[in-house]
């Protein structure tokens, strides 16, 4: 795909009454509604995080801040590789597009592996499970749902990569697909930016933090 053909694709949407392609507007509307979803889960956690419970450690007492900081950095960098994939396709560079898509999926997988490790540590070493106390339950539900979103994103990225590999490149028609996956991926990143600060850094008990 050439820069000129991308130019054309970007203006296919002009006939829409809003001036924005319907699928793209639907994605923005979906992401907008996701604020309410994650907002509810973050609020739920915050309401319980300041309370004390008779049973077992709360997440704030056992956070491993250095480890989570590295995970956050990995997810942040995956947003860079995602936007570079978008940029490469807009220039018609199919090889670079595939490379950056794969890099984004790999970084997302590293983040997920980190989350699996964190959950395993909390459950088996620290003895904090979903049933330990309401704060632990709220934490697992919030970060579990975020991890699920990341996993769905990784599947979409690998699908785009596979499609590009099989068809010898993403066509002009598929440019919007990459753009939609990109929007979803960056959204998952901004939600983690909020979770990392509000859920981890602001609620961690002094002395915790690795």
């Amino acid at each position: 795909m050439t820069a000129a053909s991308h130019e054309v694709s970007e203006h296919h949407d002009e006939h829409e009454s809003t001036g924005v392609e319907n699928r793209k507007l639907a994605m923005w509307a979906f992401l907008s509604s996701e604020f309410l979803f994650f907002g509810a889960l973050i609020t739920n956690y915050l309401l319980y995080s300041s309370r004390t419970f008779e049973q077992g450690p709360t997440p704030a007492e056992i956070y491993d801040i250095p480890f989570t900081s590295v995970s956050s950095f990995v997810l942040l960098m995956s947003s860079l590789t995602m936007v570079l994939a978008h940029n490469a396709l807009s220039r018609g560079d199919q090889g670079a597009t595939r490379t950056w898509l794969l890099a984004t999926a790999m970084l997302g997988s590293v983040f997920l592996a980190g989350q699996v490790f964190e959950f395993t540590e909390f459950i088996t070493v620290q003895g904090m499970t979903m049933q330990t106390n309401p704060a632990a339950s709220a934490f697992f539900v919030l970060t579990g749902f975020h991890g699920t979103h990341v996993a769905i994103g990784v599947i979409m990225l690998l699908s785009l990569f596979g499609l590009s590999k099989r068809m010898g490149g993403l066509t002009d028609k598929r440019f919007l697909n990459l753009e939609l996956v990109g929007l979803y991926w960056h959204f998952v990143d901004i939600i983690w930016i909020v979770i990392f600060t509000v859920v981890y850094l602001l609620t961690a008990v002094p002395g915790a933090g690795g």
Partner: protein
Amino acid sequence: MTDEHHLSHPSPAQYVKIAVGLAVLTAIEVALFYINNALGLGWINTAALLTLAFFKFFVVVGWYMHIRYEKAAVSRFFIFGFVLAFSLYGVVLIGLGVLAATR
């Protein structure tokens, strides 16, 4: 933000610079966490961390999600959801916090 696509998207080099900036902000956040642990900065720590997080949030939305370059319909959708969630859960947190304090 514009309806007429006057702004051109950043170059790959500019995207990398933005990522470096975001990484530096994350490092400052983590440093603040440890400084607060040692010195007990109180509300200053909370305000600083929230400011940094919101700054990172808006940089990703503006430059990586390209909302700066999108039509107004898109940004209205997105900002509406964000403001609605922020207001709704802000009220819930303040309300329940006040309730808990009066018990």
